[in-house]
């Protein structure tokens, strides 16, 4: 599964970068996140419940932030196990670019995700993963931007760059 999308956040690059490295920010933006704990430099353990098609599961996993190039880009890689529901593993490249919006400094955030799933998720939910991933990204960034801007009314527009 591959997904490439981008969005514009009405905050300067440095502020977005800081938020992207703030565990509390990430935890509260991640839909279904039940547990989020820093285990080392740029390494976290987490528990996330997710529903893909008919399969609902709680994933225990770890993620790591790599190739940090502040304040412009990093990579996330992770793997989660959901018991009989199967497993998911994957990575995302995230990059930030300074832009202006209505004359104010803003950030264009773009990301590309690659993910693989196995077990029951692949068996019965395989073709729903693309949709589930989009929804998860939409929910995550909506929460993320609303918290960052302290404005619960923001309706986020995410643009898909490429659909495989």
């Amino acid at each position, binding site marked *: 599964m591959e997904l490439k999308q981008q969005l514009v956040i009405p905050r300067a690059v440095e502020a977005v970068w800081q938020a992207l490295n703030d565990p509390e920010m990430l935890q509260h933006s991640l839909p279904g996140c039940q547990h989020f704990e820093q285990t080392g430099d740029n390494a976290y353990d987490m528990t996330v419940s997710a529903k893909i098609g008919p399969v609902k599961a709680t994933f225990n996993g770890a993620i790591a932030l790599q190739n940090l190039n502040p304040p412009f880009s990093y990579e996330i890689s992770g793997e989660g196990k959901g018991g*009989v529901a199967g497993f998911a593993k994957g990575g995302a490249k995230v990059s930030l670019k300074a832009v202006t919006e209505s004359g104010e400094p803003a950030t264009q955030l773009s990301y590309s995700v690659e993910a*693989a799933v*196995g077990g*029951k998720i*692949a*068996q019965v939910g395989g*073709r729903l993963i693309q949709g589930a991933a989009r929804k998860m990204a939409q929910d995550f960034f909506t929460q993320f931007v609303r918290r960052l801007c302290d404005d619960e009314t923001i309706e986020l527009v995410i643009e898909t760059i490429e659909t495989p």
Partner: protein
Amino acid sequence: MSGSLIGKSVLRKEDHRFVSGKGRYTDDIQLVGLTYAAFVRSPYARADIKSFDVSDALAAPGVIAVLTGEEVAKDGLGGLPCGWMIHSKDGSEMRQPHHPVLAADRVNYLGEPVALVIADTQLEAKNAAELVMVDFEPLTAVVNPATASQAETLYEAVPNNLCYEWELGDEAATEAGLAAAAHVTTLKLTNNRLIPNAIEPRAALAEYNSGTDEIILHTTSQNPHLVRLIMTAFVQIAPEHKLRVIAPDVGGGFGSKIFIYSEETALAWAAKKLGLTIKWTADRSESFLTDAHGRDHVSEAQLALSADGEFLALKVKTVANMGAYLSTFASAVPTYLYGTLLAGQYRTPAIYVEVDSVFTNTAPVDAYRGAGRPEATYLVERIVEKAAAEMGLDPAELRRRNFIGRDQFPYQTPVALEYDTGDYEASLHKALKMADYNTFSARQAEAEARGKLRGIGLSCYIEACGLAPSQVAGALGAGVGLWESGEVRVNPTGSVTVLTGSHSHGQGHETTFAQLVADRLGLPIEDVEVVHGDTGKLDFGLGTYGSRSLAVGGSALSVAADKVVEKGRKIAAHLLRTDVDNIDFDAPVFKMIDSNESKTFQEIAFAAYVNHDYPSEELEPGLAEKAFYDPLNFTYPAGTHICEVEIDPDTGVVEIIQFVAVDDFGTIINPMIVEGQVHGGLAQGIGQALLEQAVYDDTGQLITGSYMDYCMPRADNFPDFKVGMTCTPCTHNPVGAKGCGEAGAIGSPPAVMNAITQALGGIEIDMPATSEKVWRAVQTMPALKTA
């Protein structure tokens, strides 16, 4: 009265039970103290097992025990064997990796069971199964059969992942035929991988009686005696006489319930080990992952023809996917059930076939309705039709020129089989007439005027059924003889209990076998009861598969019924104070030839058990006779299927306009049941051609793992089938029957694909012909003339 029931569409005796909800399937059985099992399965196609941690699962509510592959290994259980030895070209034996009941250190396909959780309820067992922590270390999986022999080796003892490299036929003569040909047609094709999808999933209920040390296993099996033999002689969970296997009502098998699987074996072992009564019923997801899949061949073929269309030679190279382990009959399917059928209905003088069977990290592949014969028929009938198109000949005429003539039987083919009888011209002629073949071009033109694409396709199939005879099967590598047992047990009041080693899981044996015996003895069909599927009640039997039940099991009953008549004549002679030679059986009456004295069947039956004055040296009491019937040859059902399709070029949707099936099954006992078998087979064959395909991604994940992605045919995919019959009775069994269970699934796929290929102007696509594939093919066609 004899002869009055044969050929009659008697309503099925078992249907009242089934349609009124009174069928008794394995999952229906409730016993005191029942516990439930759930299996822990690999989420990876290939991985090392580093460790098991069952502590959380054991602590979960209701959990009684957790058994893993480690306990299986500690108890020294044998592996699940494959029953058919195949030798490679160089004479070496096929390579068979150890197939553990539960994996302990390495898993080799997605869904392979590694542990078993037993709890008070099904829900508790399933919940606790999620708590079994298995530390898997994923490894690279080998998935594609076409390249498996060049991929990483999966088993140390199996170089290049090759199970065997088999050949059949005369290579030199075939090459000579190709060299001398005026025309050579070549074809590459894939026979798509299928998932069986019986309506009743696999299930087992194992009970252990510590007082008698007996295990009783109720299970969804097509051949309970083979289950008992393999579990006791090979896996060694108990001595054979301490395991009773009962296959009660079973809801469909199509081959997938012939095989001996991990789950049922583990359950019987666990019941004894723990002293429990345990039930397991597969959910649909488990069925997708672990019921042995079918087909999965990749083939290339060349057909050599003379200038006037005479077949000179056929050369075939096939790669067959075995999956991760050799299932019970897997090795025989792409060899002796495939290569031997490549002569089809034709006089092709030279045939040479090579089959490489490979292991991959996918579910085991084994016999599925037709088993090898659909793959052979698909290849032969596609290449014959392609040759006709290339040479500008009518495909019916090309076939006719090459048919084995009705006066040429018995006919020895160049690929081992000797066909006993047949009339291929008769079924072709009848099918062409039923399909209005001669006026097809008018229908095609009419469709074209509407902007639609029409095609008509033929398939003249043959199959080898009545799986037996023991001597031939043994010479070809079968691990067991392939006869069948039957007993006709006359009760003192004259009713009859018929016991058969065949097993019915939808075929209607309780009716057909009752018809056969009732007809022979002149009894009302209500007086005949058929018993099957219980090793505790029956002699050893070999079950139902390969369209063998009537031809082999029915023949055994026919012989046993003859023995009952012979015994009855002796009893009648004694009662009437005359010689046996003076007694004639005019069913149901034993008559003196030289007087008008007689005894009814009921009088004889009663006398057999209650008489006090038998000359005990000459005549035993009782009236029950057994037969073990071992035929001399396979049976050879054959026929012609014709499919007419219309394609909407805008959507790629294929509509089947008509489907004609004309079959020669030899003598037919119950035409209604036979027609039902044909309909079911056609549905599965057309499903393969248009809709069904099991797909693994390149990591070995099954991405067609549910009905969302694995497309089963429905009623609106089919027209009203036109079914016809011709009859050349089998020459070597007493019933004259050939078998009808698989023909629909064998004959139909090439008929559908030949029709689609013609409609697409010769563009070849592989099955299944989904609307996407067809639409893409349409885009490459020259512009359509539209009205």
